[in-house]
């Protein structure tokens, strides 16, 4: 049987100091020129670039392994099934789940969260029940809860944060009650970089009898995920933010919860037996994977996990922390820059505004200097409301970024100031 992507062709030696040049060599897109300038890609929070191991894995999959899964009696279907289920085992290891049946392949975090809201939420929520959602959530961890609350008569309540962008745990504790059924919280806030105390929050939620849903979209690229240690009930992540292809993500759920939940979508793959007098469903995880899955990108996800492990997730995190310290040090020398997100535990996100310049103008000017950042509300409008701004500029780091690139960003920021005469 083919080894699919488990064996990486481009292994990078793991050590304390990263060989960033060797890592960068795996990302051909970093050699691109934009507007005649060398690309400085600092929009990793939106989507990371893909290493050759991932793109070559996709190529190899389509060149030698592709057929539909779980239904063929022929060799290629066996290869595809093996590759797909190997990816599930890799994902299991990536989040440290006890069983690989607890891993459901989805399109991304958004679909994972919607699946929980639709299937678990609709199945369990009663009028008057409460869903606690933090103030710093991405819209994808707010809106699915509002939709299901509307349909079930339950109530969405906001867990407030302080001005450093940290959840106020005392308020959270006070809000928890026997009415609380679900706590939905992000592990790392996309607009602020805050790393939330998910383990502690889960313990408190469980004491109140609620389940915990973790949005790990921004955590997956930077933190070692350990659902056994966190003891969370659900956790969703997106592949494309952690070097994997777009269109693939995973939802982890505790087996006993998943087993009790109704299917999310109906179709092929998710059934045991279908007749017009009644249908029985497949067991987990297939009950939640109706239709032909995104096989190729799951195999690409496998390669991305391998890529991260080969470098070492700790080493990736340490590198990004170094960049974060550097960007903060440089920003501290400017008196007209405002930084959003000053939590004690923070991932590689630098959100800022400049006095007298709108974030969109910053974004446009930086782009012409080759520097790609995100500007806007970052799908976190409640965060913008908290800080009373319409938009911020955000640089977010990945393993291939360098201090020199941060210098390029500041050079471009000085160009902004020059153009605006400030």
């Amino acid at each position, binding site marked *: 049987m083919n080894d699919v992507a488990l064996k990486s062709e481009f292994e990078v030696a793991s050590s304390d100091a990263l060989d960033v040049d060797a890592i960068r060599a795996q990302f051909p897109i970093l050699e691109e020129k934009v507007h005649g300038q060398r690309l400085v890609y600092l929009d990793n929070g939106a989507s990371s670039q893909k290493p050759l191991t991932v793109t070559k894995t996709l190529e190899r999959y389509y060149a030698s392994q592709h057929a539909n899964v779980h239904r063929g009696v022929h060799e290629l279907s066996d290869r595809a099934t093996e590759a797909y289920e190997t990816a599930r085992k890799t994902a299991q290891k990536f989040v440290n789940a006890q069983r690989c049946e607890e891993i459901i392949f989805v399109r991304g975090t958004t679909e994972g969260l919607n699946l929980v809201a639709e299937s678990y939420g609709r199945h369990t929520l009663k009028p008057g029940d409460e869903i606690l959602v933090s103030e710093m959530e991405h819209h994808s961890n707010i809106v699915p809860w509002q939709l299901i609350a509307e349909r079930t008569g339950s109530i969405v309540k906001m867990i407030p944060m302080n001005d450093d962008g940290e959840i106020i745990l005392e308020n959270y504790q006070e809000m928890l009650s026997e009415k609380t059924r679900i706590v939905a919280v992000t592990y790392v806030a996309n607009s602020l970089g805050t790393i939330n105390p998910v383990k502690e929050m889960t313990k408190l939620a469980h004491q109140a009898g609620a389940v915990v849903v973790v949005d790990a979209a921004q955590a997956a690229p930077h933190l070692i995920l350990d659902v056994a240690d966190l003891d969370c009930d659900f956790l969703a992540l997106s592949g494309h933010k952690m070097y994997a292809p777009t269109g693939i993500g995973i939802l982890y759920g505790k087996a006993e919860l998943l087993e009790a939940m109704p299917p999310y979508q109906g179709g092929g793959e998710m059934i045991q037996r279908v007749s017009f007098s009644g249908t029985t469903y497949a067991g987990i995880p297939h009950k939640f994977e109706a239709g032909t899955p995104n096989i190729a990108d799951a195999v690409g996800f496998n390669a991305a996990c391998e890529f991260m492990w080969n470098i070492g997730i700790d080493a990736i995190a340490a590198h990004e922390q170094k960049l974060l310290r550097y960007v903060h040090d440089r920003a501290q020398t400017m008196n007209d820059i405002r930084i959003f997100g000053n939590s004690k535990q923070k991932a590689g996100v630098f959100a800022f505004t400049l006095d*007298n*310049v*709108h*974030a*969109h*103008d910053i974004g*446009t*000017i930086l782009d*012409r200097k080759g520097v790609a950042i995100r*500007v*806007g*509300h970052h799908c976190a*409008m409640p965060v*913008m409301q908290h800080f009373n701004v*319409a*938009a911020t500029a955000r640089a977010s780091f990945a393993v291939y970024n360098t201090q020199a690139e941060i210098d390029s960003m500041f050079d471009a920021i000085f*160009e902004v100031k020059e*153009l*605006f*005469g400030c």
Partner: protein
Amino acid sequence: MDDLKALYQEVIIDHSRNPRNFGSLESANRSAEGVNPLCGDEITLECHLDGNDIIQDVKFSGHGCAISLASASIMTEMLKGMSKTEAESLFKSFRLRVTGEGDASVDDIGKLEVLCGVREFPSRVKCATLAWHTALAAINGNEKKVTTE
């Protein structure tokens, strides 16, 4: 850098810092709200249209980037005294010019010329046209919120 200097001319920066006709209009008999959901820019436009459909006065309020504020500011200066038809025709020419489809010799847009640098920045064209969409909605008595998306 040239594209950027053409976009962020001093006139633009000045209008964005000190927008003209900013605030609310007591005599207003028409108003509309516009929003660009992608970037969160919001604008409220109020105007006074007389019995002959002439814009007697116009003011705007809201927040946005330099391009959208400057565009709104310059627009309000130009709209005063114009008829509804003239305003519509000017916007048509302006839109052609900022999308790069227009021709300077045919589409005379006067002071709005300063905003033409935006044609090199396709993602910012909506910033330049938001105020206009909102103004025309107000003039035409269309009270549904205008959105660029």
